[in-house]
């Protein structure tokens, strides 16, 4: 796009769950709506739409962000991962299983965002304390479970991953990297 030129429609080319996507989007299109409405990836949820609840959490260039406060237009060249991609690659399979086993979800509305946030924590901190887990998920509201079960699930997975040697950790890093 030419510099200092303004337009209401913007061309973007990015990767979503490993696949190249090129679209012309309205400048005001938020990432969460781009994913859900334009790409049909409805796993990420829109809750408050004001950056508060975390239901829209997705991974952009290796970092978790708020899909509701990011413009799709800003993401030309970005590498985006949603719960669909994180599920397909198996990256969060153990977390998903632990969430089920521990009853860490009821309605499930917060779960895709919660899983992305928990995966992010475990990538950075393989042995988090309960306080650390609580702090890291503080930007993800869950109106059903009361959080204790979620913290239990994350603790379980952290312990299991530590026990299962370094292999899982290597797989994690590869998936988290920016495709370039």
């Amino acid at each position, binding site marked *: *796009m030419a*510099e*200092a*030129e*303004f*337009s*209401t429609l*913007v061309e973007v080319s990015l990767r979503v769950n490993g696949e190249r996507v090129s679209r012309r989007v*309205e*400048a*005001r299109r*938020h990432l969460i709506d781009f994913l859900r409405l334009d790409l049909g990836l409805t796993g990420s949820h829109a809750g408050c*739409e*004001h*950056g508060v609840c*975390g239901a829209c*959490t997705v991974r952009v260039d290796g*970092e*978790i*962000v*708020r899909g509701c*406060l*990011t*413009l799709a*237009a*800003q993401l*030309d060249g970005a590498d985006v991962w949603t719960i669909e991609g994180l599920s397909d690659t198996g990256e969060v399979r153990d977390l998903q299983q632990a969430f089920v086993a521990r009853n860490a979800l009821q309605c499930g509305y917060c779960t895709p965002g919660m899983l992305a*946030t928990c995966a*992010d*924590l475990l990538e950075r901190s393989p042995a988090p304390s309960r306080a650390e887990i*609580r*702090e*890291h998920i*503080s*930007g*993800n509201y869950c109106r059903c479970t009361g959080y204790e079960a979620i913290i239990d699930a994350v603790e379980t997975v952290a312990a299991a991953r530590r026990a299962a040697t370094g292999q899982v950790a290597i797989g994690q890093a590869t998936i988290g990297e920016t495709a370039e």
Partner: protein
Amino acid sequence: MRAFSYSRAESVADALKGVVGHGETKVVAGGTNLLDLMKADVMRPTRLVDITRLPLNRIEETAEGGLRLGALVTNADTAHDERVRSRYPMLSRAILAGASAQLRNMATNGGNLLQRTRCYYFYDTGTPCNKREPGSGCGAIGGVNRIHAILGASEHCIATHPSDMCVALAALAAEIRVTGPRGERTIPFEAFHRLPGDAPQIDTNLAPDEIVTAIDLPARGFAAHSTYLKVRDRQSYAFALVSVAAALEIEDGKVTAARLALGGVAHKPWRDQAAEEALVGRPADAGSFAVAAEAVLRDARGFGHNDFKIDLARRAILRALQDAAASETP
């Protein structure tokens, strides 16, 4: 959200070209405050210049022995930077006390400085607010004002500045580097944000056609004796009711230098240099700290729901100074 047109700036010159002479143009960085306010219809720019590609995303040493924090470095990367953590632990702590992991990954240093108040009436377009609509009145005076200012307020606005990072920057006496059509200039931190006076619609002394390029931290980081204490309604993920950045240099039990700034109490991060000076030469103990707290709050006044903040601030100052005196290099 209203429609707008968008431009992606590739250079600082580009960004300035986009901004100059257009009152309805705003730059967007992380978007976490601007897009939120646009959704709430509080801010209505017709054009956005995306500055996220500008080469202002580095943390560098300065010739003076300090650090230059690029305007586009994220709050997360700043807080986790090893140099910031070891030399300016108070700043790192303040940033990590704010928002959530996802928001800190998006929020930039420049955007954090320019984030706007969380006053409920400012957000509610159905109520009067001099900041949103000059001359319409202030909904918070005589309204619900639990989160509002106790220092430096005016009859036109009693809002507070919501940032945590800025409170530490005030205590560190950082400098803001800006650039615009009239060239570059440096603004001392204390002169960056404004008190509301009779023009609460203007938050800062940054001109509308200027952009922030960096924040300079002076060499002195008070790493041995400093802290950031944030008091809020819950333990995590809430804005400060009152916060305190406290930093000391201590020799033989006596204070040789002091820095004291408060958040959540005024329209700008509230640094009190008179109280700092009064601490110098005194023993680093609770008696001296209590005197400092009294000095900071001498002119404080509440507006009803926020009266509790005066006592809360007094206790928070005392505790923060005590923690700072006790703290060691992390």
